[in-house]
């Protein structure tokens, strides 16, 4: 079991990390939540290993953990101060990452799962709890916006 998990960890960790970074917008926060998600996968490996896409399980576990209460509760004090839809202050990782961060959350999630993790829209939809057709719409819009922004950046 330990060897099988170790192999899965080695093979998947970078893509999982990139998918989570694309969604949460901070490499430091992604490191924490991805580590926790892999720990949960290890603890539950007998069932996670049977998952059709264990790496998707880890990404979703990481994103769920990132949303956990005591992080969210901080936001209760400045009442009405909600999580921004897009991420305004990206880590310094280049224009493509910055352009992804500027997308709405659902579009970032669709790109994270379908492009960086290479899930199909059915698998991504199942992971996110939304319809595959909705994933395809967000993915299409996100990639279209990215293409335009990167083209604009290249021309200026």
């Amino acid at each position: 079991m330990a060897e099988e998990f170790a192999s899965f960890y080695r093979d998947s960790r970078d893509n999982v990390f990139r998918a989570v970074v694309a969604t949460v917008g901070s490499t430091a926060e992604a490191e924490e939540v991805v580590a926790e998600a892999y720990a949960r996968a290890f603890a539950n490996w007998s069932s996670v290993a049977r998952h059709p896409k264990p790496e998707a399980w880890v990404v979703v576990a990481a994103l769920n953990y990132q949303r956990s209460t005591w992080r969210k509760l901080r936001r209760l004090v400045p009442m009405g101060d909600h999580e921004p839809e897009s991420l305004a202050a990206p880590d310094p990782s280049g224009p493509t990452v910055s352009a992804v961060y500027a997308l709405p959350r659902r579009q970032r999630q669709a790109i994270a799962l379908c492009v960086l993790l290479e899930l199909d829209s059915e698998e991504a939809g199942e992971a996110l709890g939304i319809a595959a057709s909705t994933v395809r719409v967000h993915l299409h819009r996100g990639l279209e916006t990215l293409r335009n922004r990167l083209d604009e950046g290249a021309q200026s």
Partner: protein
Amino acid sequence: MKSIEEVVREGFEPLHFESDLASITNRNQGSARRRKLLALLVGGVALIGLIGAFLSGALSAPSAEAMWAPVPSSPDQELVASASALCSAVLPADVLPLAPLVLIDQRAGAARAVFGEAGMTDQGSFQRFSTCTLIKTDGTWTAPALDALPFEAKTIAGAIDDAEYDVEVAAVVMDQVDGVRVQAALADGFFHFWWISPDDFPGGTMRFLDARGRVLDSAEVPARTTG
């Protein structure tokens, strides 16, 4: 000519996850404890009894944070009992059989009923939550549609919508710089919340504690004036 997908992958390629395997597997102990607690949250009526049983033991243990003592406000059992019926017009029918957690503001004028469950399956973790806002007018609780709520109730609705609950957090304590302490504690299965006025706030420190009083996290909250 590269596709946009290739451009995205190349853009993220410099990012690598550097944690070694040992550091991951060593986290497992805490993770397993959280999973065990999470399991306690699964299920409708069992939820309240199980958390209550857990806390009755945990809260009597010596506190690592001697300053802190759980002092929840009195639960409004009538409201808890009637939350499903009150919320039936604004929530999907499939969540109504779940036992709600009811979050009540300290002035007992507004509340949030959280109907939900979470757990693990072979397909991964799952969670579903639906919430509705309750307000008390002339001594009577109602659950109006969101667009019919008064401003203050909308504020608490929006804030608590954004706050899921985590089984590790048993209490939240706010120590204001003016010496006032406000807190919420989980007891008898209910997470009693407080209301921070939308008026001027002097600033303070917010701490998140587990059932033994250990600080899980803290946050400095800046002063705020309404001008």
